[in-house]
């Protein structure tokens, strides 16, 4: 080891710097945590057994199912319409980009809760809804009250609102693709196949965010009696007055669902990070497999 002049100097053993305030704050946090745990355990009004009883009750499971369906359907509407709006917004045609801008301005600028109630009451504005030739005769028509059920109103409100946000996410993703990439694609006679996958890398993380956000926003449609998780919960506590335990139960369900979505997002992001200088960290499964290997592989050659 040692070669050349001099001996190896002795290891430094300095007196560590004292940080008393850090200890004080740590103590405070621990005391607060202990108080919380004690309260959770001893305050009978939490009604934990109600949480357990109703967690898998059929109306709750039905509510969870509808919450998931609403999330998926609203996101589908939001993504399809959002991509369309983004492409329109980037169009050189001023009518198309202007229309897209106006749509986004309106639906992003008004509260989603107001939009939900608005769609629910659309029959007051248009009692009859029909399909036909613009300014001409109608081919089919029906009563708005029968066509726009509370579920349709919920989908319209959540989907259209989401599309306004999603359009901006897609636009950012497309604009983030290096111009050289677009030129290289053009010079080879291509376009979409190169730009979209690269835009996806930018689009995917906020999409996961939006999906998680949407899952929670669906609870707003309980107000217009859509039988999703919160409405199911409300129905139960309206009968037995155990409001807090049932809201805790609903919250736990929301936490379970968002946790699953977060994990899913992690894997989708990894996929779209291929080829970037940011090497994705190993997944829990890969880490487990590596640790189970009898002979440790040196870390100097990371898995790409």
């Amino acid at each position, binding site marked *: 080891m040692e070669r050349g002049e001099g001996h190896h100097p002795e290891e430094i053993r300095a007196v560590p710097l004292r940080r008393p305030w850090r200890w004080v704050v740590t103590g405070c946090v621990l005391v607060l945590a202990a108080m919380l745990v004690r309260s959770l355990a001893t305050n009978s009004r939490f009604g934990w057994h109600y949480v357990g009883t109703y967690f898998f009750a059929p109306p709750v499971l039905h509510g969870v199912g509808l919450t998931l369906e609403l999330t998926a359907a609203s996101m589908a509407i939001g993504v399809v319409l959002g991509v369309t709006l983004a492409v329109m917004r980037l169009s050189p045609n001023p009518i198309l980009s202007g229309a897209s801008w106006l749509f986004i301005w309106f639906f992003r600028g008004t509260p989603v809760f107001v939009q939900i109630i608005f769609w629910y009451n659309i029959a007051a504005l248009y009692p009859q809804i029909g399909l036909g030739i613009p300014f001409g005769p109608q081919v089919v028509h029906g009563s708005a009250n029968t066509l726009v059920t509370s579920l349709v109103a919920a989908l319209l409100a959540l989907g259209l609102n989401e599309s306004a946000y999603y359009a901006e996410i897609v636009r950012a993703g497309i604009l983030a693709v290096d111009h050289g990439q677009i030129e*290289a694609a053009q*010079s*080879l006679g291509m376009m979409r196949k190169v730009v979209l996958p690269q835009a996806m890398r930018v689009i995917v993380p906020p999409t996961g965010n939006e999906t998680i956000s949407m899952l929670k926003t669906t609870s707003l449609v309980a107000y217009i009696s859509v039988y999703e998780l919160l409405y199911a919960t409300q129905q139960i506590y309206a009968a037995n007055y155990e409001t807090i335990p049932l809201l805790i139960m609903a919250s736990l369900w929301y936490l379970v669902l968002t946790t699953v979505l977060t994990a899913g997002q992690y894997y989708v992001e990894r996929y779209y990070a291929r080829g970037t200088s940011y090497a994705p960290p190993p997944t829990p499964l890969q880490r487990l497999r590596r640790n189970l290997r009898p002979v440790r592989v040196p870390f100097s050659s990371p898995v790409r």
Partner: protein
Amino acid sequence: MATPMVKAESVHKRFGALEVLRGITLEVAPREVMCLLGPSGSGKSTLLRCINHLEQINSGRLYVDGTLVGYEERGGRLHELPEREVCRRRTEIGMVFQRFNLFPHLTVLENVVMAPVAVKGEARAVVAERARRLLDRVGLSAKIGAYPNQLSGGQQQRVAIARALAMEPKLMLFDEPTSALDPELVGEVLDVMRALAEEGMTMVVVTHEIGFAREVGDTLVFMDGGVVVEAGVPREVIASPRHERTRAFLSKVL
């Protein structure tokens, strides 16, 4: 005489108020290697991009292999071409960029294979075979599965050349292909280009490599301020430039 591969007739190109090309007239014969030289801002890269219709010219005429670039002449008027047709014509022209512009989300092999399959509808297996041959020719058969970010600049540029060649173009455009490279990596790219020229590929090369222009180029065109100042046999232009501006430029880069 054969149809020139590239023919420019007093080509003008403006960006807003700035006139970048101010009447370029030149011809590139089949199998010819033309090197474009000049200070930055002289319009060399813009001319190259116009040939590939990445930029639209404002006046004059530009032909590739006897066909008007980007337009069709019918009834005495120019008609813009539909995108599909522009794309089809671009597939006959290969282009290599200063910043390589490889597709970062695809492996080396996929970069080369993608366009012929997606655009020309060729069978994957056939293209993959050709891609392997091309990558072998540019000395990168060992890097087939790597991603562009794992390669050096010189390797990336050689992949970019293979990617352009996979479309089997009849004309290759090089836009300062070695300007973004470390000095020690310039040679490997120039070697590939030299071999390509020897095989008879028609090439238009924007470059600052005077040595390459002298040894490989059939013609040297010196541009400044959007016009062709001087053109001729590279050895003669470099040894005895007729124009003061050419002389001044060469004295700085030689």
